[in-house]
């Protein structure tokens, strides 16, 4: 019984979307077959991080900013450290850079797997959570739990724990893992590919919906590597973009229905995250990730937001290989404790990294006494708000022949594909640099 798409009126309001990180609502109003309103409302309580940091010492900043989000704590810590170090003229050793990158690989894999297995896959088998899957689809549930555990172990070995890493400190990394711990990690990491392969099979057997709309992708880009810690911001539209001009090109603005700001580039809304990175950096993927890309039949550039799920899986292959390489390099080095570099100046500093959900920007002003005076951050989910709403508009008009409950469910699947991190998105709302 197909419904008449052209005449359909439909009001859908989803309060407190589940299986996403943080509190958000979705509203879609359709009148006579046209979407009149599509809103992604962030209702998370604002936490005022930009104010919380004011008056605190520079070496507390990464510690405080990590608490913006439990899932991407390593990314917030890393962006924060880069901003502090750039403001204060500190440079870190090769050992410390490698350890930070290794921790970031761990966070990428753990965050992606949490999303793919715990949040997204239940949609594909009509379940409300991963819990019933432990009985009905034990292989895929166990694969998710296992990969996530090993990914968390990476962060544990480097930084003490994966939620709010400890040893990542201004001027370096203040703990040195034992080589035996690294060798042990290596062994476990080598075992992850079979679980990831199984996940590829699962996604091939359980297709997501599909919807294509061309858009701009922004991510870091780095010569010779799939940049997540190093690199400069890059737009698929090709206009020049770099660290210092980022806030000139990317503007944030407030909307009344949301406690998060939205972001717009000179070209309009843009998408960040795994799909953006994959589209912008496909050539720098490692071998197994490239193979996964072709097995998952992702054509680059892909303008299908549902493919963000698949892009995350491809990245899990990539970051597992990357972590193995970093470990091999570390095993060849002499590893010992190093005192962190000391500040050599003060002023303004910017730190940009790729968080699991996309490009993340921290900017601080630090005074002569090492006290933070001003803070600005641009968070992935704030940047993804416009494409989420634009996709809602476009996609919903293509599915109006479906029953109401199905439309509602497909809307949830679409928003979830972005893996929005709402806790993150509300904490920075101001650009008050003067």
């Amino acid at each position, binding site marked *: 019984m197909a419904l008449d798409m052209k005449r359909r009126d439909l009001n859908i309001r989803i309060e407190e979307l589940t299986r996403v990180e943080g509190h958000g609502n979705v509203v879609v109003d359709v009148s006579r077959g046209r979407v009149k309103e599509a809103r992604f409302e962030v209702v998370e309580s604002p936490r005022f991080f930009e*104010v919380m940091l004011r008056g605190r010492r520079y070496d507390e900043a990464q510690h405080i900013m990590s608490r913006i989000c439990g899932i991407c704590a390593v990314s917030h810590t890393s962006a924060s450290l880069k901003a502090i170090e750039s403001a204060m003229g500190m440079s870190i050793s090769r050992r410390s850079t490698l350890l930070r990158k290794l921790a970031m690989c761990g966070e990428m894999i753990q965050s992606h797997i949490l999303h793919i297995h715990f949040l997204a896959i239940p949609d594909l088998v009509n379940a409300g959570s991963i819990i019933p899957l432990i009985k009905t689809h034990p292989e895929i549930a166990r694969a998710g739990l296992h990969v996530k555990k090993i990914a968390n172990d990476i962060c544990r070995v480097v930084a003490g724990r994966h939620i709010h890493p400890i040893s990542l400190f201004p001027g370096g990394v203040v703990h040195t893992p034992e080589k035996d711990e690294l060798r042990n990690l290596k062994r476990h990491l080598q075992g992850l590919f079979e679980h990831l392969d199984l996940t590829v099979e699962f996604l091939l057997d359980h297709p997501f919906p599909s919807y294509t709309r061309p858009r701009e992708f922004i991510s870091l880009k780095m010569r010779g590597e799939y940049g997540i810690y190093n690199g400069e911001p890059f737009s698929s539209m090709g206009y020049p973009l770099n660290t210092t001009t980022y806030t000139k090109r990317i503007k944030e603005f407030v909307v009344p229905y949301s406690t998060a700001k939205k972001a717009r580039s000179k070209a309009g809304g843009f998408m960040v995250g795994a799909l953006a990175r994959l589209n912008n950096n496909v050539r720098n993927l490692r071998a197994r990730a490239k193979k996964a890309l072709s097995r998952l039949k992702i054509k680059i550039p892909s303008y299908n937001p549902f493919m963000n799920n698949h892009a995350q899986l491809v990245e899990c292959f990539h970051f597992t290989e990357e972590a193995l390489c970093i470990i091999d390099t570390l095993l060849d080095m002499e590893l010992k404790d190093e005192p962190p570099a000391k500040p050599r100046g003060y002023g303004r500093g910017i730190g940009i990294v790729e968080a699991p959900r996309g490009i993340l920007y921290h900017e601080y002003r630090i005074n002569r006494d090492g006290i933070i005076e001003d803070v600005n951050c641009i968070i992935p989910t704030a940047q993804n708000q416009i494409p989420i709403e634009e996709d809602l508009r476009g996609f919903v008009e293509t599915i109006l022949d479906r029953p109401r409950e199905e439309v509602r469910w497909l809307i949830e699947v679409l928003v979830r594909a972005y893996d929005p991190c709402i806790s993150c998105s509300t904490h920075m709302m101001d650009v008050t640099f003067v």
Partner: protein
Amino acid sequence: MIPLERKPRIGFFSFTCCEGCQLMFLSCEEELPGILEHIEIVNFREAMTERSEDYEIAFVEGSISRKEEIPKLKRIRDTARVVVAFGACSSTGGINALKNRFPMDELKRLVYGKKSPVDTIPVVPIDSIIPVDVYIHGCPVPEKELLRVLKDLLLGKTPRIPNYPVCTDCKMAGNICVFEKGMGCVGPVTRGGCDAICVSYGCVCWGCRGVVDDPNISAHRGTLRKYGLTEEDILRSFSLYGSGYEKKRPEHKD
């Protein structure tokens, strides 16, 4: 503490926070399938679609920072037999309480500009609003402690909250005291139970688990003086997690 006839039903609730403590629960990957044999999770917005208003144990994460959170918290208290303050945000106010250093009007103006309709109140831990039965401290809560408390609750035992200083953990971990290296540390008056993990990983204790019940402050002052550190340094550390030598909390009436 709670003799139960059916599989205990547990709800996870989240107020103003980073949701890291909930994630800590999801990170017990090895134990999760086993735990799920013994409990039924009925409310966990981050991980599941189903919701129910029928539960015995409520794990409450996050602090209270908006008026509209207060009635929600009270409803949880009315429903649950056991309320667990889950993590620093909920047990001491946590990092969020840093905003209390500023007047609320100034905060809103600084962040949203003059015409902001945002509702924000000084941050408080949940026991400023409702009685709490069990505390799991830390930012984030240690996995070990979380599992132990959960097990005790399921066995009907009253979970014990550690009440010895982090220094005890630190000595057990075989760390060199950071005072010897000229750094300051609030371990002597902070509640232990975390294996002094921050010292083991190259930093100092920042006091995330709050102050022990009767802190030996004068001894701490002595140590400080011995190593040339000021009390101000230490208070500064404590102010990171909303706890200080004296509990000063803003009051909220609804």
